[in-house]
């Protein structure tokens, strides 16, 4: 069977992703995985294995020396990646390689601002687009500071995702939902990334506050790592991201990552 090769990229590809998931009456599942952990080849193998399990999209982690929104698991993994000599250029090459190997799901580059500035904002967005990426998530870039990145993304149609947190005020929810393209990233917990035992009880209230102000897709991240949490998240929002739990499996190889991704994916059916 020849599936039609999708030519959609950027915000259009993300919109199609959410529609596809919705058509099956489920939320989209976007795994996070950093390039270069535990090695460059292993990270690509892990992402390819998850792609084959039918996950909906990816957050591709770009290592940074000072990842202040990340908890110990991702800090340690991205530190290993840096010790492996991973650069921004290498991460873009990884996206290109994954596309060449047939990974079709949308990919968002998740990385901190300073390496983007060092690369050059315009060049980064252009090269990310050329490599086949669909959007950017920059955890230390609030919309107030994002004018240059945003206009570069708009030029090529890349999504620029902004985040909301349980502390966000109504005014900030209005600002962030207006500015975000692709989707709005809801940080489920107070704190850094890292798998948690339970999703917070205040989560439905937080989601409702955001939902009241926007029709854009909402994606939940931080703290999700188990099938029952995936199910729970799937009932509240349009998509969810799992990072630390998958990265932890990464130490045991691509097969272990695939197995967890498969169980999270199955929890949605």
């Amino acid at each position: 069977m020849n599936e039609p090769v999708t030519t959609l990229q950027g915000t259009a590809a993300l919109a199609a992703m959410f529609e596809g998931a919705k058509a099956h009456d489920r939320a989209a599942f976007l795994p996070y995985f950093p390039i270069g952990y535990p090695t460059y080849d292993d990270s690509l193998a892990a992402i390819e294995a998850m792609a084959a399990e039918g996950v909906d999209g990816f957050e591709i982690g770009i290592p940074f020396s000072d990842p202040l929104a990340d908890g110990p698991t991702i800090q340690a993994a991205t530190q290993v990646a840096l010790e492996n000599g991973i650069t921004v250029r290498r991460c873009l090459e990884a996206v290109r390689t994954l596309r060449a190997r047939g990974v079709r799901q949308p990919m968002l580059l998740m990385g901190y601002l300073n390496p983007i500035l060092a690369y050059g904002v315009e060049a980064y967005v252009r090269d990310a687009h050329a490599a086949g990426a669909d959007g950017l998530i920059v955890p230390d870039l609030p919309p107030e500071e994002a004018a240059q990145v945003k206009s570069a993304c708009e030029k090529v149609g890349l999504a620029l995702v902004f985040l909301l947190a349980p502390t966000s005020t109504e005014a900030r929810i209005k600002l962030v939902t207006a500015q975000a393209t692709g989707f709005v990233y809801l940080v489920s917990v107070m704190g850094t990334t890292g798998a948690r035992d339970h999703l917070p009880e205040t989560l439905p209230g937080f989601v409702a506050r955001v939902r009241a102000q926007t029709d854009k897709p909402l994606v939940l991240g931080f703290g999700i790592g188990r099938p029952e949490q995936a199910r729970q998240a799937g009932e509240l929002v349009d998509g969810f991201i799992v990072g630390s739990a998958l990265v932890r499996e990464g130490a045991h190889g691509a097969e272990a990552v695939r197995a967890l991704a498969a169980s999270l994916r199955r929890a949605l059916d």
Partner: protein
Amino acid sequence: MSDHSMPAQVPDARGYYGEYGGRFVPETLMPALDELTESFQSALADPDFMGRYEHLQATYVGRPTPITYAAQLSKTLGGAQIYLKREDLAHTGAHKINNALGQALLAERMGKRRVIAETGAGQHGVASATAAALLGLDCHVYMGSVDIARQRPNVFRMKLLGAEVIPVESGSKTLKDAINEAIRDWVANVEDTFYLLGSALGPHPYPLIVRTFQSVIGIEARQQMLDEVGQLPDVCIACVGGGSNAIGLFHAFRDDDAVDLIGVEAGGLGIPSGEHAARFADPNLGRPGVLHGTRSFVLQDADGQIRETHSVSAGLDYASVGPEHAYLRDMERAFYTTATDEEALAAFQTLCRQEGIIPALESSHAVAEAIKRAPTMPKDAIILVNLSGRGDKDLDTVIHEIGEDA
């Protein structure tokens, strides 16, 4: 008329000093920074708050600190006359208490009973622990394990003062990593926690808050020079880690065009070695970037990864610098130079012998610049050095560097 095209007011409403500053933090913290900005502005406008701050500065910190004429040192060097602003005589032994006390009062006013702080040399940690003890706040201090090893007396001091010292093992295990951990703590506990940031850096409004509480240094020193010496200094010199003691001194002199403002960064093992913390002096490694929530000069590699820094003084060992310094440098209102570890250690010993003052290794960088500069200046010229702290905390390091027989 001013020669410098200096806007009347920096920062602007968004916390920018020219193209530097701003707010680059995770969304979780954005509302807290808005709240902090509002609380700070209302506190400044509240005579009771400022009155309490000034009362404690006088009765608890021991302000005003004097200026001391360094008679022997000036004579030996044979050029400009050197005066020292004695922040080493402030309670806890450094200028850091000016800011820690102000922010702790702000925490109390905002109803936040838990304060967190980062520390490099330990002076800001000690100052925070002290202010927290005074006001009955619960204090947690993040400190890199490398700094814990080289600043042991201050670690013990913080514990005596009732603070919890949390060792940081990530990255270079120094100030940069302590700030990362403090920010992570704040993200997790922002609702009941006040982040007591120790230098003129971080996201807006911190550089402004720190400048405001440290500006007492320059306000006093300027008046003391006029009252006691009869004229303003020709040159003001301060060491620059994050930049709080320097901005505290410089701010009162910003409109005195005839007064040169000189910041001294840590030259470490020398600029060519790459082993330093000289953000402005090394064009290969120091470029504008974003670290810890602010846009400023940052030591980084070609890929934008933050460089590990080196200085014999823990308090200057940091990859970025307060955004207002980057701005003052662009405006050519202030100039920045470096002193190496070796020059700082030599200046440390010189000040001990010639003036009977044991300076902090951080402050010794400023003294080193005065020692270089004074002989090139006429005898009626005046140099004012900010002696930001005392050196008792550094004795282990100095013994290690120069041996017990000094």
